[in-house]
């Protein structure tokens, strides 16, 4: 094959490539040829969540309760469950995958085009986490030491005695009540309790109040102690008699501090939603009673539940849903058929919803949201428009600069740059058909625009070199060859450093950085091809001796080429 023939084939290949990527990048041009349009407009760029709107969530899975050999299974199960839930809500192509960071198991959920961020989050987080717990040691942490309690009560009693003394001296009772009473129900009305029959109050209080020697308008001369604290009582008036005797009284309460009831603490049993086979709505005996939720465990769950009920006979077993206790029935007998019932005062709708959610699957491990990036669809659209505009303006300005400064060579570089853009867009569009699908994000567009600026660098290097060689007296074609040859090491060495940093950025891994780095690395590689191979083919094909008399076209003054005695 002659050199010329080879060049012609190369040139034809470039034209063909330009046509293909041109059509793929801008299919609208073929709109009048529907058959072609249907083909070339099919590949679409896969837009990132920041450009089409959506939510990216990163969850931490708490696998501490799970045997380490089963962690992988559990993570897979979480993924499956969330997939089912998300699919049920009709989100297009959700992305759900498990990752690891150090020893932490994480789950990433990406939902595109979601309008309501909070609702989206809820449909994942509301996945019920069902857990059975048994009674553990009573919680002692809120207990107050007895001596502290005694001290506080002695002070309270002294305070009550002081108020009583003041009331007996004739100070306004209702004002004293307003200022001091610790009975929230009567405090604001000056301690007024209204007319009450015998038996309304606690025994100690009643006994004093209905003591016949206690006269209307008097303040009882001693403090009355009840379970609530110390009362200062004033009898206002009485009406009726016998069983209908009603007494109108007022009181001031100084409350007594008591030991808080020890909380029954429930501890995990290892039985959880992952052992669930199914759930259904049932009714207690007759159809008229409250609906309840029946659970059927799998084999492992049946065994566990039998053990738990055997161990806890006569004690409570609590059923927790998403960390909230929903019922804590007392175990009557050992249950070995793997069936349990939750009675939680459900309405029929609540019971149905719970059953549905339980059947869709309970999460085998609890998850916590640790990172979220969400962008509302309209904002994504704005970002897309703005960044594309920035890209087009940047591209045009670079082309204008190249045309002004390098004239004919600049034109070639611009054509190469347009082909570069076309190839990049096509790679983005076609990657969807390969296992290495590339998602275009906002930083990705920024990276792309940046590579437009960098892509012409190789051409600038070559052209500067070519001009230099022309000035040294070489003929133009020869100079172009020399320019490409000599500039190549610089182009290669320079781009390797960009590739090193881009590769480190990809390793770095965060969404923003990754999108940017991937476009940068592809851009650098593609631009090396377009700036060197394509522009060289174009130049070799088009340039000829005709340019020797039109050197202004490549921006070299004719006189410069002849004044080179020093270097020739």
């Amino acid at each position, binding site marked *: 094959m002659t050199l010329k023939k080879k060049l012609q084939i190369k040139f034809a290949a470039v034209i063909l490539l330009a046509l293909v990527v041109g059509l793929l990048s801008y299919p609208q041009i073929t709109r009048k040829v529907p058959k072609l349009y249907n083909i070339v407009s099919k590949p679409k760029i896969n837009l990132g969540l920041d450009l089409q709107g959506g939510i990216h969530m990163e969850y931490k899975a708490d696998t501490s309760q799970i045997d380490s050999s089963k962690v992988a299974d559990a993570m897979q199960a979480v993924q499956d469950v969330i997939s089912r839930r998300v699919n049920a809500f009709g989100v297009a192509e959700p992305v759900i995958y498990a990752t690891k960071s150090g020893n932490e198991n994480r789950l990433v959920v990406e939902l595109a085009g979601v309008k309501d961020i909070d609702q989206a989050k809820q449909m994942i987080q509301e996945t019920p986490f069902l857990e059975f717990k048994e009674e553990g040691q009573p919680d002692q942490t809120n207990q107050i030491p007895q001596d502290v309690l005694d001290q506080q009560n002695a002070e309270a009693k002294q305070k009550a005695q002081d108020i009583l003394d003041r009331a007996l001296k004739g100070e306004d009772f209702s004002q004293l009540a307003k200022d001091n009473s610790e009975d929230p129900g009567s405090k604001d009305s000056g301690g007024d309790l209204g007319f009450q029959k015998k038996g309304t109050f606690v025994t100690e209080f009643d006994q004093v109040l209905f003591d016949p020697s206690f006269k209307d308008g008097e303040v009882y001369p001693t403090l009355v102690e009840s379970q609530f604290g110390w009362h200062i009582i004033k009898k206002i008036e009485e009406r009726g008699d016998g069983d209908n005797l009603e007494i109108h009284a007022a009181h001031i309460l100084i409350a007594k501090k008591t030991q808080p009831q020890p909380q029954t603490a429930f501890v995990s049993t290892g039985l959880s939603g992952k052992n669930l086979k199914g759930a259904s709505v049932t009714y207690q005996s007759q159809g008229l009673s409250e609906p309840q939720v029946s659970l059927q465990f799998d084999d492992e769950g049946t065994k566990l539940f039998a053990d738990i009920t055997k161990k806890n006979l006569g004690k409570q077993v609590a059923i927790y849903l998403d960390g909230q206790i929903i019922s804590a029935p007392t175990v009557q007998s050992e249950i070995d058929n793997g069936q349990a019932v939750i009675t939680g005062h459900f309405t029929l709708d609540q019971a149905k919803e719970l059953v549905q959610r339980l059947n869709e699957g309970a999460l085998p491990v609890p998850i916590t949201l640790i990172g979220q990036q969400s962008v509302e669809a309209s904002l994504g659209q704005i970002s897309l428009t703005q*960044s594309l505009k920035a890209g087009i303006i940047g591209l045009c*300005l670079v082309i204008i600069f190249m045309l002004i400064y390098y004239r004919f060579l600049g034109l070639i570089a611009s054509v190469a740059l347009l082909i570069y853009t076309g190839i990049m867009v096509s790679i983005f569009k076609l990657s969807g058909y390969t296992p290495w699908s590339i998602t275009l994000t906002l930083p990705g567009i920024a990276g792309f625009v940046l590579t437009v600026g960098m892509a012409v660098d190789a051409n600038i290097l070559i052209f500067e070199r070519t001009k230099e060689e022309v000035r040294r007296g070489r003929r133009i074609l020869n100079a172009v060859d020399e320019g490409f040859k000599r500039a190549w090491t610089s182009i290669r060495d*320079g781009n390797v450093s960009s590739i090193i940093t881009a590769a480190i950025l990809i390793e770095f891994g965060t969404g923003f950085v990754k999108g940017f780095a991937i476009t940068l690395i592809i851009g650098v590689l593609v631009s090396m091809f377009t700036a060197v191979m394509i522009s060289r083919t174009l130049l070799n094909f088009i340039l000829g001796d005709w340019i020797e008399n039109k050197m202004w076209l490549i921006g070299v003054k004719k006189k410069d080429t002849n004044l080179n005695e020093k270097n020739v």
Partner: protein
Amino acid sequence: MKKMFNIISKIKYAYIFSGTLTILSLIFLLVWGLKFDIDFTGGTRMQIQMANNLPSNQEVTDTLQDLNLKSLIVQPSANNQVLIRYASEDDKVNQQAFSEISAKYPGAVQLRVDYTNASVSQELKTNSLWAIFYAVVGIMIYVAWAFRKVSRPVESWKYGAGAVIALIHDVLITTGVFSFLGHFYGVEVGVPFIAALLTILGFSVHDTIVVYDRTRENLLKNSGKDKFPEVVNRSLNETLVRSINTSLTVIITLLAIYIFGGESIKYFALALLVGVTFGTYSSIFIASAMLVTIYNRQSKK
């Protein structure tokens, strides 16, 4: 032949200029530090679109008062939008915060919510430092390797050292500029800033390599009639137009992103813009100047 600039004779001024900027940047960083955003501090940033008129910052703060949000910052922004940031440990707070707001201002829409838990931000911080470390080491090794054949009169690893000093200079000044912007204009730095720094590293070295490459070529061609500083100066002159033009095209595109690209990548573009500008300057005036300085020291011995 075109006019030759005697760049090398002006080294002194370049050193004074760069030295001043570097020291200023270091002072900024020591005194003010950088203003980290939630990528590195953990917390929530919420951009909310109000349906009606924009409430005052105080009104929004009052609305959120019950939640006791730590380091709450409320900023109004264009088109009836408001930006809210606070330190948060749990995602529940985010939902509460927005429900308080949408209860008070019906029709409010969450345009963007970024939430980073402390463990994630810690991880990002560590990763960022490692990424910068690996990039610097990788580039140093690469430059030393690329120039392994040139060992006279200046050894190849010294080219690497020169390139690394130039890129530390670029990165320090860029960081200094953002320290300044952070202190006076509240500009925050997050993961995008780190990405920008790494890109600047790559770009700065790219530029330096082109100049070094020409020096290498001229040294191999040079039969010993020109002295080393003259060879460096000639190489600089020969690559000057290219260095400036390349940077111009990159700066043009970055300006386009900065001006038209929208809020979310504005400061990313700005960081690159500052870094690329200084990267070009340093590859001309610092990296090659270092070679000459090293050479002069060697010959004095």
